[in-house]
């Protein structure tokens, strides 16, 4: 393989120079993914190229044009969430609560020992408690208003996961909820970092999504962006000539972010630091015109803030929608910054499906694991990236090699772009 050519960049920072120790670090990861519950299981499956996509089992999907999805099949809601909490929350929150608990344990953070106002929770949600909501709205319309349960008001709204995590661990700091579809999973890291630069010490962040109920699936189908193929191995092929849309999934990841000095002081071993972030928005589509994307500027902002040259980036975790027109826009943005075939690009989300806010958070977790172990996970299923995209796509097998800086991209439906640069701590 020839030495990649990389575009020159101006290492200009909009924010004042900061000491590297000022970069918030991630000290804990919790994963609830279709191809693995818990970080070890997920990471092993991801490196082995084991996919979690399959025929939908949560309901009879026969009549729907989309019948393949990524379900967290090992997950038992009543086993993983205390029953009293489980009845008042949606499946999406169950996954989030479970991932948050794993992440806190992984970080070795004991909330009972920390100042209550210095712990915050900021989660992303793309679509809230869809399944719970469908059950309650069905009761309303089939039986009457008196049949709607008392937990509807707190289970389906987008703030449910954040609120329940805050209550469960006594976290009384500035809590938040950001919705920007897939991009929200990166936006919450920026908010977590902002809070750590103010008065928070520990932030539980990340996100999950789970809209694999009949109404949730039909809503997703309405965009025309989903894959209608029944073969799980050929259904989600971003950047491939054979790309035909994406496969939806459920799950995500929670991350524990801490102030670097505080983490060091308590002897924590960080996975890495959140060094740069950029967010932009696309102009509305104009009929008859090529869409214009501001993804490239989000990438540039993240690199500038991290003071990392494109040549120093070891891997890009792509948004990888799997829709040719959108794949082309993303490939153009990556090539514009890194040059043609200028950086390894991967999309392990072909093994989980698109998890929306949960997916972007999971990509950050995956990037941090790639840094830890010096290996880039593969984009399973893609046989060859379309030559026109000029991407160095890491395909069927994981690629070894040191990973110091990893860039994660996420685009949210409707025009959201976000980029996060994570770096070895």
């Amino acid at each position: 393989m020839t030495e990649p050519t990389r575009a020159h960049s101006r290492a200009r920072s909009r924010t004042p120079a900061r000491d590297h120790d000022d970069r918030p670090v991630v000290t804990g990861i919790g994963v609830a993914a279709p191809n693995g519950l818990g970080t070890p299981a997920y990471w092993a499956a991801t490196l082995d190229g084991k996919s979690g996509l399959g025929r939908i089992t949560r309901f009879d999907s026969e009549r729907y044009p989309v019948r393949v999805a990524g379900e967290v099949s090992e997950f038992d809601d009543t086993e993983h969430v205390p029953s009293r909490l489980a009845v008042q929350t949606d499946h999406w929150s169950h996954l989030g609560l479970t991932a948050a608990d794993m992440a806190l344990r992984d970080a070795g953070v004991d909330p009972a020992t920390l100042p209550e106002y210095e712990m915050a929770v900021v989660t992303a949600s793309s679509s809230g408690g869809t399944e719970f909501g469908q059950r309650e709205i069905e009761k309303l319309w089939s039986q009457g208003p008196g049949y709607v349960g008392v937990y509807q008001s707190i289970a389906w709204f987008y703030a449910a996961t954040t609120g329940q995590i805050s209550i469960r661990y006594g976290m009384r700091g500035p809590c938040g909820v950001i919705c920007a579809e897939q991009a929200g999973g990166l936006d919450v890291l920026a908010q977590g970092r902002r809070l750590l630069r103010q008065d928070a010490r520990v932030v539980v962040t990340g996100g999950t999504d789970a809209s694999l109920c009949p109404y949730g699936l039909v809503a997703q189908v309405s965009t025309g962006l989903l894959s209608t193929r029944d073969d799980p191995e050929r259904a989600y092929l971003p950047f491939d000539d054979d790309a035909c849309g994406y496969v939806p999934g459920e799950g995500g990841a929670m991350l524990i972010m801490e102030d670097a000095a505080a983490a060091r002081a308590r002897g924590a071993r960080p996975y890495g630091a959140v060094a740069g972030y950029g967010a932009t928005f696309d102009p509305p589509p104009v009929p008859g015109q090529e869409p214009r994307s501001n993804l490239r500027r989000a990438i540039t902002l993240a690199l500038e803030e991290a003071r990392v040259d494109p040549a120093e980036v070891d891997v890009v975790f792509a948004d990888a929608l799997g829709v040719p027109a959108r794949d082309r826009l993303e490939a153009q943005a990556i090539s514009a910054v890194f040059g043609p075939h200028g950086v390894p690009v991967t999309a392990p989300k072909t093994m989980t499906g698109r998890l929306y806010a949960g997916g972007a958070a999971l990509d950050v977790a995956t990037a941090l694991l790639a840094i830890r172990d010096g290996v880039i996970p593969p984009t399973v299923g893609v046989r060859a990236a379309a030559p026109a995209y000029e991407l160095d796509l890491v395909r069927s097998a994981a690629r070894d090699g040191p990973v110091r800086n990893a860039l994660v991209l996420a685009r949210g439906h409707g025009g959201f772009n976000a980029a996060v640069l994570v770096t070895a701590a």
Partner: protein
Amino acid sequence: MNTANAAGAAGGGAVREMSAGEARPGTRRRTRARPGARRSRYHAGAGRRVVITGIGVAAPGGIGVRAFWDLLTAGRTATRAITLFDATGFRSRIAAECDFDPAAHGLSPQEVRRMDRAAQLGVVSARQALADSGLTPGDVPPERLGVTVGSAVGCTMGLEQEYVVLSDCGRQWLVDPAYGVPQLYGYMIPSTIATEVAWAGAAEGPVALISTGCTAGLDSVGHGYQLVKEGTADAVVAGASDAPISPITVACFDAIKATSPSNDIPGTASRPFDLDRNGFVLGEGSAMMVLEERDAALRRGARVYAEIVGFASRSNAYHMTGLKPDGREMAEAIRTAMRQARLRPGQIDYVNAHGSGTRQNDRHETAAFKAALGEHAHRVPVSSIKSMIGHSLGAIGSIEVAACALAITHNVVPPTANLHTADPECDLDYVPLTARDTRVDVVLSVGSGFGGFQTAMLLARDRGAKPGQRGGRA
């Protein structure tokens, strides 16, 4: 139906005819002496300062800032029997609705078809705010313009309406995909509202939807404030929108008896701090504001309503819907915001309360004000505009910020309508029934929401800027 809109029993007629700026002997009084020269810089640190330069409001009682401010200062109420759907069989059948014709406010037929009502209200108020600010792409390029929109329940109304069709009135769990409309996914993701506002404002900077339940409207303005303050954006269209008056949302508050069942007195059912209150009255609406970096705003000659000088939130980690009576975490949020603004309690001229009209809320925040403001809690006027325009969940926080900015502009404190007999445990000055003319330089606005969120924001008059010339009454 609209006859129910008349103001409360006591003195409603007289109040209605009054305008904000008119002298009203007997009701006009100064609450305290001016703090004078000891007032120093409001803003914390040497960083960028953030000012409000444009306001747009679509609220019950009228679309537009003028109608909104007229309603508040007259002490009129906009709560009434629900007309948006047939509420027969529901426990609470009253709400504060917007008389809103999207076409009359400039939305095209395609926009109306595409957007849920919450997005429509948001776009209309965003366009108003941008027009009011006079901001142009020449002042702030699209990539430096951000959008932060708060919403508690997003596009639930559209989501429910389509559900009814796809499920054939709830008869099919396996809903029929043949009836799915193209915008259905846009209804499931609340971020669609932020998308529509960003498109309306031609923003290409950071865009986010904030969904912290009933504090979302304060938190979204706070988020926009931080984006400008830290330099991520130079201007942000910040605000919130919610349109929750649909069967499923009304039913879910029925289920926990959070809303008022006073269906026989819709016009006076929202009674924060009153002994006879029995829950909140659901509302809908939107407010958007243009937030700008102060120096740039002054350079372009913008009119400044107010400066945002403090913003903090805390969580009670107690219960998803319950509140401890001590108001401890809200008090902490208030103290933190005061620290940021370098303000002492005595400098606060007006407190815009969450004042939802539930017993636990009114006692919770009364305790919070006493804990955070000390003796000054008994001197400062405190009022709840939810008494007039209901509780529009995630939207109300932004609508209240708009009211606070107008209070500073006009030196008028809006009243708490329908407050005839104060709950003995709520013993502060809640400005009952009648607006009060008084110097308003610094305002505290608070919010409290499901999930345990408690937020406080401080606004201050910007004395270095041009005084208000437009908006509301001259």
